[in-house]
């Protein structure tokens, strides 16, 4: 099978590998690189569990051809924490019970991360819009929205 050499930056580390022709980015990340944090829920771009950030913007890695990320910067939840220090979003998700089974959490966190980098002080509607591509069957979304708003407030240094 034809292979394509690709290099990209994954969580601040350079990755170089050969990808099968037509392989999806999620398969290259999971089976090729061994970053298991993107989850495959539907493989048809519906559920958002496979969300990764490509150059800071959320993308569905199940619908992204691996060849198209040549030279680009990819962030997954594996790089969200700084060493042992969790990201503010991670701590507010933990405190606010914003994950139950945990399967959608990686995608939710990245969609939220992208939002807070663009809009540091979002309102509730903007948060809902930002995670509208990510399905969750356990929580009913409310704790997730609350956790993202709380993270935004903490990052702004506002009391809650």
């Amino acid at each position, binding site marked *: 099978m034809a292979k394509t050499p690709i290099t990209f930056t994954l969580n601040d580390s350079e990755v170089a590998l050969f990808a099968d022709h037509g392989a999806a980015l999620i398969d290259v990340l999971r*089976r090729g690189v*061994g970053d*298991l*944090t993107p*989850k*495959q*829920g*539907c*493989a*048809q771009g*519906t*559920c958002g*569990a496979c969300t990764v950030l490509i150059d800071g913007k959320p993308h569905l890695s199940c619908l992204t051809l691996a060849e198209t990320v040549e030279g680009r910067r990819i962030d*997954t*939840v*594996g790089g*969200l*924490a700084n060493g042992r220090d*969790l990201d503010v*979003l*991670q701590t507010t*998700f*933990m*405190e*606010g*019970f914003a*994950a*139950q*089974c*945990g*399967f*959608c*959490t*990686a995608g939710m*966190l990245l969609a939220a991360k992208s939002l807070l980098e663009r809009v540091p002080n979002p309102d509730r509607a903007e948060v809902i819009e930002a995670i509208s591509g990510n*399905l*969750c*069957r*356990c929580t009913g979304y*409310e*704790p997730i929205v*609350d956790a993202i708003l*709380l993270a935004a407030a903490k990052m702004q240094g506002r009391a809650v």
Partner: protein
Amino acid sequence: MSSVEFRKDLFANERDDTLKEIGKPTIRQDILGHVTGRTPFYDDHLFDGLLHMRAVRSPHHHAQIRSIDTSAAERMPGVRRVATAKDVPHNLNTLLSLIGFGRDDEPLCAHDKVRYLGEAVAWVIADTERQARDACAAVRVDYSVLPHVLDPEEALQPNAPVVNEVYPNNTFDYHNTYDHQKLRFGDVNAAFARADHVIEAEYQMSPIEQAPIETCGAIAAPETNDRYVCHTNTQALFFSLGTTAKLLDIASSRLHFIGGTVGGGFGGKVDSVVEPTAVLGAMLTGRPVKFAWDRYEEMQVGAPRGAERWRLKDGLTRDGKIIARELTGFFDSGAYMRLSPYAIIKGTGHVPGPYFIPNVASNVFCCITNRTPATAMRGFGITAVDFAIECQMDRGAEAVGMNPIEFRILNAYRDGDMKAHRRKAKNTALIECCQVAAGKANWPISAEAAAQSSLTGGGTPERVAIPETVIDSEGRIGERRAGRTSSTSPAKNGTGRVPAGTHGVAVSGAPVQNPDMQIDAERIGHRMGAEPVSAPPVAAAPGVPVRPAAAPSYQAPQPTPPIAAPSGPATPSYAQPAPPTSAPAQAPTPAPAQPASYAPQPASPPTPPAAQPAPYAPAQPFSRGVKRPGSSPFTSGIRRR
């Protein structure tokens, strides 16, 4: 952040409020893994040389399989193995056989015919998922399409096609005798006759897919010591292990199942389909094999909450009291039984709901149709009954012109009330829930309704009594096979009565339990001298099978006194909860008579039958496995039916 409100003022004297954790925020023990992406789901275990397994699925609701041609698929690139039903060592099972309930009715892979759209007829194992998909499309299956039935009531019609030959009446056979599950309490017909309002209505619930974000899947791989490891997202690890052992005819000691991390379940991951399939793939190829449903399969093949149809008839007095409720239910089990018969037992007993109703009757049918088999989902067996009951309560309130919340408070059960399934209500709280809900919704209720309490007014002599219950001339509380008429109305020509205050004939079914020492002879494989069960009747006539006029497994009624002493020894045999798989002629088992010795026998290689210790004296020899009474025959991996 939390919207939980605690009402510790209610029932404050029923608890000593020294709990340290309840009501305080806490952090889930597994959430650090979730937010860092390190939680290991089944698919997060990497194996070198992993093969991918996909199923060839039926495009028909109901069809005979004339032939399967796998030769083209076997020549496709990357294909390692094509498997069909003949590769499954023991290709017949029912999920609840692990607890001795129901007949084996479902193959892992269809061989004679397909009974629902999407049923697996073959599998392809290939190097990549795409190669497996391409090869699946190249498997040629020659079908002869049969008429199908998709509605549970239509399945009960005499001319309906037989879906599953193991149950030729298209219904589950409760106690091998009844085509429906029954509940009788008091005399509904007498109560309807004196009711001021009679309200009849029909309610229906569609199948509901659990739709977890992570689809069902498993990875199996050969392990050391001639074992197979299986990473799975099952919700029922030991069900899956026992089912795999049975279907693949392999000792459970050779299976190493690892689960516990489920990417959403909601009941849809209890059916133990992907695990035996993946382990079969690993057995056939000697390599790690992943078998996972894609999203389409999760929605089409994944077992949903079954469709349910309920007909309710309530009798009310002018002042708003419900004095009778009759229910006829049709539960769509799909093509196979799985957990539906059990759900119906729950639903039948739930008929009065959280209300005190002195006369209750219900017949609920577990119907077999050509739909996807139904299974567990969040309170299955109860949820749709509650939906029907609460809609019916609103209609009742309207009929008598009452505030619907006051109507519920008036009819609510209270501590000490006898319920229709003959258990006293304890720790009831419906009245308080209604009062709080009315307050939250700014829904005015009368001072009298606001003053009611679950603690008082219940358990009075008339509310704790078990009423006289109608029976027919043979001592039964109704016909055994109601499928032809589907009517719940009990014994209009009833000639007998179960005296008030007794459990009566047919409801004395549950024998007195001796909790630890009860030996379920059937379950552990003893025959207790009875003849072995013959194979279930199979109507294998080609073409259009038609339901036989008479039920073949009908059990000859035994003459019975119409009224039995409450605890007398002369309980008629049909009142015993005979194990559903037992032969009709089997005598009631004097279960506690055997002295049970729980001393474990030394673990040894397959034991010759003569070496079994005396007290158990099995009629059928043990091959190996079961070491003590009470242990499931399938956790040993040996099937003995």
